[in-house]
């Protein structure tokens, strides 16, 4: 696939987004090691091209649902950085006012309908958001991100099936990072690919190199246009790898070191940087300055978060139920 001169600004913006996600998570990891940050987290390092490639093909009014590994999707969809960082710190200024944390982060203002602690939990929710768009006659689409393990949940089958029957504008994106926590892909799947399951639902399926930003982006543009035009759902499988363990305390001793190294040699950010520089669309200096700018932004977000107050302990009690409009008028 060739880079196009007229898309330069988009390409650089995508680079910036990937760098932002990496910097955000590296900072989180550092803060966790220093026990500044509560809870646990699941890192996205190595998979950035998937979230950024996909979300760059979306509009702000489109919807996504995410997973327990959701920081990348959140920032790729354009969520507020300060609010995202403050949520990690469990602060009242967090996107979810400190009630959700890393695993349940959401920013509805940009169509980010939530990370999800339950594997496969977000799939039918994305399909439902797509149904709402279809019923309203809006041309919004929804994307359901999932790890490959979710493809073995019942919600995968039920969601893809009904989405196909109703031709819902939804794109199911499998990030196949080869491990469901510790279980290797080949021990959990009888076939080499997941995208081939698309045949079972009569929908388009595509296998994509998840380390190649442009490949993800182009596949996404195709699937999104199909969905907007009423052509129904798609299944995209991105072959990728998570650099870190499953969660914060997992050293991933179940993976061969050579395998990790091989994947890290195909780092999505480095690959994209090389492409931009080779094609003359960006200089190394320009890319370097992006890294510096992003680091500053992330540091500022940490400062915002640390200075923010925690939620009142009993805030949760006022958030169990939404106040119905008619009650609010009382």
């Amino acid at each position, binding site marked *: 696939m060739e880079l196009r001169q007229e898309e330069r600004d988009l390409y650089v913006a995508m680079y910036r987004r990937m760098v932002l996600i990496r910097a955000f998570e590296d900072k989180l990891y550092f803060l966790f090691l220093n026990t500044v940050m509560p809870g646990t987290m699941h890192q996205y390092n190595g998979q950035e091209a998937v979230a950024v490639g996909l979300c760059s093909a979306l509009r702000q009014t489109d919807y996504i649902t995410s997973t327990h590994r959701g920081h990348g999707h959140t920032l790729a969809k354009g969520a507020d950085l300060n609010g995202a960082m403050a949520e990690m710190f469990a602060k009242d200024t967090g996107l979810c006012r400190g009630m959700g944390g890393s695993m349940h982060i959401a920013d509805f203002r940009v169509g980010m309908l939530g990370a999800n602690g339950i594997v496969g939990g977000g799939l039918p929710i994305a*399909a439902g958001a797509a149904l709402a768009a279809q019923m309203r006659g809006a041309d919004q689409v929804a994307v359901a991100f999932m790890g490959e393990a979710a493809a073995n949940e019942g919600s995968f089958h039920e969601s893809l099936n009904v989405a196909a029957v109703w031709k819902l504008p939804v794109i199911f994106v499998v990030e196949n990072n080869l491990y469901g926590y510790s279980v290797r892909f080949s021990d959990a799947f009888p076939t080499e690919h997941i995208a081939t399951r698309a045949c079972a639902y009569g929908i388009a399926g595509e296998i994509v190199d998840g380390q190649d930003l442009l490949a993800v982006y182009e596949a996404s543009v195709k699937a999104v246009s199909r969905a907007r035009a009423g052509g129904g759902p798609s299944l995209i499988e991105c072959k990728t790898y998570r650099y870190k363990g499953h969660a914060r305390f997992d050293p991933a001793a179940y993976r061969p070191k050579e395998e990790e190294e091989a994947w890290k040699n195909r780092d999505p950010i480095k690959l994209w940087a090389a492409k931009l520089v080779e094609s003359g669309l960006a200089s190394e200096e320009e890319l370097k300055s992006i890294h510096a700018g992003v680091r500053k932004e992330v540091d500022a977000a940490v400062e915002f978060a640390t200075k923010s107050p925690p939620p009142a302990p009993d805030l949760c009690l006022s958030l169990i139920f939404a106040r119905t409009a008619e009650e609010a008028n009382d």
Partner: protein
Amino acid sequence: MYESIAVALNRTLADEMQRDSSVFLLGEDIGTLGGAYQVTRGLLQEFGSARVRDTPCSEIAIIGLSIGAAVAGMRPVAELQFADFVFCAMDQVVNQAAKLHMMFGGQASVPMVIRAPQGATGRAAQHSQSVEAYFMHTPGLKVVLPSDPYNARGLLASAIRDDNPVLFLEHKLLYGSTSAGGKAKSATGSLTTLRPAPEEEYTIPLGLAELRREGKDVTVVATQYMLHLSLRIADQLAEEGISLEVIDPRTPAPLDMETISRSVVKTGRLVVVTEDVLTCGFASEVVARVAESCHISLKAPPQRVATLDTPIPFAPESERFVLPSEDKIVAAVRRTLLAPVVV
């Protein structure tokens, strides 16, 4: 007047769909067939297949899509063919619908209703359960148990207009409808305490119990079919000079303890009757709360009358044996009256 719950619900669904274009229905066999209990009969013709959606046999998808549509601005009303089937979709109900509002810091609301028929009618273990206690136990859900056409209409309108997920559990014996396949087992012919629903629109707030019969000796809190059995024995016991005060809690969540406590303080005696199984059921919760807040007023140990702790058996004799009955309610009332009064 709408004489049956099935018709009252049907017309309320239609009214709410007329009133608000974001309301739509989805579920198994609700379109062409009109629902297993005919609650959605004719609505496909009235509103079209975009708003009355026959779904595949996929409970996770029915509930999950409802949640997604709800957070994206719609007001879905999902039907599960039997309440027992909700367990297929438990993650979506308990981990998703109930939690999103708080988990996302109030950014999202989930205005949706899950309607499902419950109660034992000779269908054995997997088509007979009363499931309200599972959902009373889940913060973030509202639970409604309509007992007659009047309540069903007003409560359903409130449930649909509510901005939270609501489990609306209907008792099969009280529908007063014929099933799509023929005559459904029904108790409506033998009951005189089912009030019809007026045709004009009205709402009944969620969280308000109803005093169905005033009395002075024993408070009986009873849900759905058990409410009607309790009202019937109240007539019989009145002839013996025993005066029952009968309360329909209507919504186990939110639970109106004020109405119940006021009555217990007056009578000093409490019997709670539900068709759910005994352990950790609705009755257990009411008794616990009364014990905590009104024990000084109690003249006798509170009694729970519920289904025995067993899967519902098929044999009619066995089903009768495990379910609450008028005799069991009367016996429980008498136990509260026999207990020595210690002042």
